């Protein structure tokens, strides 16, 4: 490498991004710094046959070009000097000391190391993940490699929403078309990290259960109907969309819930009284809650509740065996069959 030289910007090939990992760079602060005090640190270039290749300093060169500067201080590597990989690692190290990398830039850097510079995965895990403050784990490497393959729109979303690695993995399992359909959908909702994971999981599982694309799920009229209601807040929209998705994901549960609600409504509970089934209808019995503000109200509720026991709808709701026998949805097992199931008489 030679001493610092002045190189004309026109002689630098801006289209050669061999050593660049930039994604959504914030040039504003760099621009104001250069405007105020000029360029402090020279860029690194490599001499090519007719021009120069940028090794390190893409952002500085872009800003200087914008500012109408003609030449730039640079240290220049000869064409037959260090290898591409050596220069790339040098560029990474140099950037780490000055600015660090966002998640997408880490992904691009790792992708270049593995695919462009042909490093083994194990070498990537062992030698390079720690450069980006990542644990040396193949799963993490694969997560970043999958992010690097995603569309720019998705990458921007990952950065903006600070999407976690586990959610990046869920995004990576989707098709490009699905991800592109997902972005406008997500922009209308209010989702933190856990809710986002829940949403991805629901969409992906419904899509696989029903054998339709995630886009197909999002495009359903009931979901689009909720999304188009402008009067709803993002939180309200999120809740309603989630309810629709839960029902699609668990149709039998939804059917039971509806049945339970229908029966519950049939006996017109007074205000302040509520009935709950066991969680997921596993187990028997009901939980009843009531709230009152006066002894009079208390007496009214008790009087109502005491009459409730005689109502058929109520017996049905608590799955009273006598009532259940009449209402069983399943085909009945004959006495012959029962008597032989583990040799036990009923």
């Amino acid at each position, binding site marked *: 490498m030679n001493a610092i030289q002045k190189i004309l910007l026109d002689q630098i090939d801006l289209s050669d991004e061999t050593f660049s990992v930039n994604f959504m760079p914030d040039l504003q602060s760099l621009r104001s710094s250069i405007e105020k005090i000029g360029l402090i640190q020279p860029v690194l270039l490599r001499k090519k046959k007719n021009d120069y290749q940028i090794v390190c300093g893409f952002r500085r060169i872009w800003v200087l070009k914008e500012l109408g500067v003609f030449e730039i201080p640079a240290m220049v590597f000869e064409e037959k000097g260090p290898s591409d990989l050596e220069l790339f690692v040098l560029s990474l190290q140099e950037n780490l000391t000055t600015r660090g990398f966002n998640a997408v830039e880490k992904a691009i850097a790792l992708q270049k190391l593995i695919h462009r510079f042909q490093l083994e995965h194990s070498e990537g895990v062992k030698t390079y993940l720690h450069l980006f403050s990542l644990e040396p784990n193949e799963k993490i490497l694969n997560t970043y490699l999958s992010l690097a393959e995603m569309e720019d729109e998705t990458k921007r979303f990952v950065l903006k929403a600070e999407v976690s690695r586990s959610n990046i993995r869920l995004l990576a399992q989707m098709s490009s078309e699905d991800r592109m359909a997902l972005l406008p959908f997500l922009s209308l909702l209010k989702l933190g990290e856990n809710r986002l994971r829940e949403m991805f999981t629901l969409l992906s599982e419904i899509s696989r259960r029903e054998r339709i694309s995630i886009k197909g799920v999002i495009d359903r009229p009931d979901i689009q109907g909720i999304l188009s209601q402008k009067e709803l807040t993002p939180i309200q929209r999120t809740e309603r969309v989630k309810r629709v998705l839960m029902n699609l994901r668990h149709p039998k549960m939804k059917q039971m819930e509806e049945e339970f609600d229908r029966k519950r409504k049939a006996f017109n509970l007074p205000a302040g009284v509520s009935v709950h089934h066991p969680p*997921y209808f596993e187990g028997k019995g009901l939980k009843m809650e009531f709230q009152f503000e006066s002894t009079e109200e208390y007496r009214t509720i008790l009087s109502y509740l005491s009459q409730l026991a005689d109502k058929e709808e109520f017996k049905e709701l608590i799955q009273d065996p006598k009532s259940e026998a009449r209402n069983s949805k399943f085909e009945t*097992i004959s006495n012959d069959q029962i008597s*032989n*199931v583990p040799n036990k008489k009923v």
Partner: protein
Amino acid sequence: MLPFQIERIYLDEKAETDWVSQTILKALPEVPVERIGDKRILIKQSHPVPDPIGTGKKNLLITHFYGRRLKPCPGTSRHICCGYYVINPITNCPMDCSYCVLQGYLNNPFLTLYSNWDDLLQEVESFLAIGRPPLSRLGTGELSDSLALESIFPISQFLVPFFAKKNAILELKTKSTEVEHLLSLDHRGRTVVSWSLNPPQVIEEEERGTASLEERIDAAKRCQEAGYPLGFHFDPMIDHEGWEKGYEGLINFLFSRIDPKRVVWISLGGFRYPAQLKGIAEERFPKTRIFLGELFPGGDGKFRYFKTIRVEMYRKMVKWLKQVSPDLFVYLCMESQEVWKEVFGWSPQNSQQLNQLFEERVREFLRRI
């Protein structure tokens, strides 16, 4: 035949002179052997491995185990259990089923065989000597497939004659065809050979490294001809598209080859899993569809199919089985009294009562055959 090639044997110095170890080394002469002084260091050094479960199917660790290897089946709280005991001579399994709960429990990349075999037999001997209920049932299929390592170390050759002299029942539970060593043994009806069964589509998609349905039933037929009592476990039953056709076809196919009179018990169990399994299994089996059913957490924290789904599956299975023979002894594994009642119209009062029913069943079965 092992479903996965053993690539390396780690031999604990303490186990080096055991006859079990020597038998295995003779059976796998071309596999490199690494001698180790302290298995804890080996296990510590083995981390992190991207897929410890998958890796563990190729690394055989032969060592000693000094704790209890015979325990009551862990069962599950608030459910009826059958009073079974488990013996664990091996941990980890060379087969690779997407739904296997071991994926969530085992934390080291080794298929481990405990070679202090005489200690194990002594443990079983002591257990049976202290006034256990007659015909107690013990099985080796909890932490591994009972017959999976038969080709390198025929455990059955030692366990079957041992139990033949006891007033207890050994169950060898498998998804393999490794029955060759069993056929000539004098079992005196004290060993039940049993198979976990699923429709061919489920076997193909979810039970990697296991024998096909046809192969399993052929192996069962050979055991039937050798006079062994047979058991079948429709567990885990998977709710999938066309499950009714799949399971009814499976029952018909099974009993076109197997005499129902030779079947001592049949269990039914819907797919269930502890919460931590889903993430691990989905990562190892990205195409699996087992978690796409309607599964919810129960009182014991395990996820199960929605109750109406389970009851419907069990009822239909019971109906199809009873059409084959009303004398088949069918029970539910890890289910609540409520589900028992909905399926059979009655329920054991508790796990103890189910255990008694088993005892009666086995006694009656042994008298008859």
